[in-house]
């Protein structure tokens, strides 16, 4: 039974691999953005050596790792749900002897695994442009775990957004807005510690921070080992909360499709 879902994931990997030009352009555009982040931060740091106690090499490491994480986190792995609702083919999937959410999860995982593999060549190219600090193995392990938790938070958020299509069918504008908000409030573009102090409390409590900021602050050592439990606990809390909302929306939406279908 599980084998079917592994096959779905493998199929998704094969499908993504056919977009060779897109792969090439996404790596090329990443290289340009790494160059940009270097010149931008170097120019800013020329006038202030360590704002908020963040050194130049730290911010460059932070921003580069954030871009690489974006290769995975910017993927809308549940897009398939939206597409299937749009053309109505979801009905056929409901008739198959499979769990549709698990099918969507496998397909999305396959897509994400393919893009995660792009991190390796991208990192190799980035290393020519900037110096990326590498922390100790234990910190790297904590970062990996936190990144995984952040990925699940992102998965739930995307799933919720795509579930909206059960009711409205068209959600492209909402999704783009969500991506920009995530990049900004998640701390992908500018670290959240640079945000005005009055806003930080609220922004760190949002789920966007659980996607990017938490793993990144672990990576650069801003969250020390004694803070790991609290930080990752909050991430886990978001997964439970958003996962619950996603499950409720799925059930309400799926019933609606059945009703529509007669």
């Amino acid at each position, binding site marked *: 039974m599980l084998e079917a879902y592994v096959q779905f994931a493998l199929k998704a990997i094969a499908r993504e691999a056919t977009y060779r030009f*897109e792969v090439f352009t996404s790596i090329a555009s990443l290289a340009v953005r790494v160059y940009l982040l270097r010149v931008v931060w170097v120019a*800013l*740091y020329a006038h202030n050596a360590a704002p908020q106690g963040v050194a130049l090499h730290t911010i460059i490491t932070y921003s580069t790792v954030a871009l690489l994480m974006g290769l995975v986190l910017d993927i809308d792995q549940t897009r398939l749900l939206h597409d299937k609702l749009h053309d109505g083919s979801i009905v056929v999937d409901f008739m198959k002897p499979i769990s549709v959410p698990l099918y969507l999860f496998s397909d999305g995982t396959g897509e994400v695994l393919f893009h995660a593999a792009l991190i390796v060549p991208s990192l190799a190219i980035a290393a020519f442009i900037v110096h990326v600090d590498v922390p100790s193995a234990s910190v790297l392990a904590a970062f990996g775990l936190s990144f995984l938790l952040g990925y699940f938070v992102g998965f739930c958020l995307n799933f919720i957004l795509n579930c909206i299509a059960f009711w409205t069918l068209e959600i492209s504008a909402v999704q783009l807005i969500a991506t*920009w908000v995530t990049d900004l409030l998640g701390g992908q573009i500018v670290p959240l510690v640079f*945000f005005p102090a009055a806003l930080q409390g609220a922004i760190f409590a949002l789920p966007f921070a659980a996607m990017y900021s938490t793993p990144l602050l672990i990576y650069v050592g801003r969250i020390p080992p004694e803070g790991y439990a609290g930080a990752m606990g909050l991430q886990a809390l978001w997964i439970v909360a958003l996962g619950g909302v996603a499950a409720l929306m799925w059930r309400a939406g799926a019933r609606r499709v059945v009703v529509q279908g007669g």
Partner: protein
Amino acid sequence: MMLDVYRTYWRINLLTTLEYRANFLLWFGFTFVYHGSAIAALWIMLNNFPSMNGWDFRDMAFLYGLWMVAHALNATFFSTVDQIPEWIHDGEFDRFLVRPLDALYQVITTPGQVFPDELLLALAFLTVATIASHVAVTPAFVVLVALVVAGGALIDLSINLLISTAAFWFVQVDALRWIALQLEQEFTRYPLTIYSRGVRLLLAFVIPFGFMNFFPAAYFLHKTSNGLGLPPAIGALTPLIGIAFVAVAYAFWRAGLQRYQGVGH
């Protein structure tokens, strides 16, 4: 006659906008978040640093505003240029070739659903940024800014036209357009002086993004350096650069058109 058609087209467009108010508001929100998040990121950065090579947040806001208006002008008036590849692909493009009007003119005047939301937002933002930057607002300044954003819009149009023309040779140009848009946004956001000399020259004379906003802004804001050691007044050349670049893009377009007809579709 041609202008009459264009005027009627715009009247209908604006009336449609008023008809679909909810849709207009949604797109307005979309545009607002898009530019808002970019400007917010700049503001947060410059809250922690006194300046970026002598440009503080107010200067950067003016820089962004100039690009925003130029970009919005192009997006509002020439949005259908983006659709050329799709039309070629579907075979719909051929109908432009059998009519007794210039094909590009027909493309530009093809009715589409265009909301002027981005343009309105851009004009409002540039106005606020201008007031905040303490530039002396004289009639001459207003005229020059109008010419500069018009020239900037032509630069933007040229890039779009070049990419659309590539569709005569390659079927898929979506990825190319996406990258060009991304690069344009990134490379117009910061002062040109932060880049290495090679990149500065590239952005000045090969892909003239620098003329969309940096050179004019450096001129208006009396910045001591424009990164190339050229006289500050080159910032006023944007309209000419725009016209020249459109001419290049149009020549390429004609060549593409020739080739397309030559194949015998």
